[in-house]
């Protein structure tokens, strides 16, 4: 085997390794789905998923066909009535997160806030959970 053939064989092997790495990394960007705890009928006792009040008042990011919510350092989405999260943050969601917090809507200033002047009356917005 001459030197040129050896080098080209080495080049092909390097391409194969790079291609495998690219496929693996791209698959990883899709995120590994991990199932989160589901609350069942026990309202108020939250497990490893965003609280109902957060879902009700936060604008999701649509990714991969699901409404996704950034909460507690993870992206969550519902599929088939159960909450799931990405074990690794997909690149698309990472980019959206870097663009700014998810918008939240605040409907009322709660009583304790009124007396101290905190919060607005109705409407309003606050940043998403980070």
């Amino acid at each position, binding site marked *: 085997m001459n030197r040129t053939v050896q080098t080209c064989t080495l080049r092909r092997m390097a391409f194969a390794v790079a*291609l495998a*790495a690219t496929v693996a990394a791209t698959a990883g960007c899709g995120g590994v789905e991990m199932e989160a705890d589901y609350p069942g009928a026990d*309202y108020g006792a939250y497990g490893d998923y965003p609280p109902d009040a957060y879902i009700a008042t936060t604008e999701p990011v*649509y990714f991969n066909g699901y409404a996704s919510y950034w909460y507690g350092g993870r992206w969550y989405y519902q599929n088939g009535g159960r909450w799931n999260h990405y074990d690794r943050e997909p690149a698309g969601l990472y980019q959206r997160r870097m663009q700014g917090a998810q918008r939240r*809507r605040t409907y009322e200033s709660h009583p304790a806030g009124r007396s101290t002047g905190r919060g607005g009356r109705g409407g309003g917005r606050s*940043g998403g959970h*980070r």
Partner: protein
Amino acid sequence: MMTSCRMGIVAALLLGAGATVGCGGGSVNNPPAATAAAASAGDADATAGLMEHHRHHHHGGVTLFIAMSLDTLGVSPDQQAAVERLRTDLHARMEPARAAEQSLVATLADGVATGTIDAAKVDAALAQLTAAAAALHDASAEALNQLHDVLTPPQRAALVDKVEAHWAVWRLANAEEGERAKPEGGRLATLATDLGLTADQVDKIRATLAQGMPRLDPKEIATHLGAFGDAFRNEKFDARTLKTASGANAHLVGWGGAHMAHFIEAVNPVLNPDQRTMLAERLREHASHNPSAEANP
């Protein structure tokens, strides 16, 4: 030849390395474990504000949950005008029920201010509120059908998730005192903080609340929400086929109003003049505003 092959090897290695590093979150941005306790002050305010809203504004029932879900659904600029028009339309359809609820809360506020709540007037307002709620679904069916047409499948699913989340929060906000251990932020605990109620006042209120408490059948609401969710996620949807809607709205709104009245009637006798003035003011504030109907900021 040698140079081109070497460049090829370098390019291939860089491609592989670049693909690995380029994966946004990857190992560089490994997120921490999720904990509900990590909620920020802004989150706490938004949550408390939603609880406060669901304690005092029942008038639209499930239709109100749907309209509120549109506030943070996340729609494209192309959809924005149509969705806002439908949101406004839904609130307009809820107006008769809102006016009836306004009358109920104003009656309660007057009673708290004077020390005597007019029970007959409260009952009449409750009947009007329940009747208006029962008519709500038929009045808003066309708007719901148009909304379904405007939204994409993921948005429809997200709306159903949000409606169910509102129902869960509504139940938490209106859980009957004594039904089980109340979480912090319950109706009585919130009022105690707001008005500076003493422990003795709280005990007296709790004892009165246990008597004659109206009962909610959550299964009726849950059954309707299940039917709505299944139907709305489908490609074809017709709100007029949802036969459980009017009953669920009447039950949810009627119970919400009755429970609010029962709560205020239990609180009323134990208040001192300052607390009376403060509570009447709070109630009038709720009667006079409709925050969920305001334009989306």
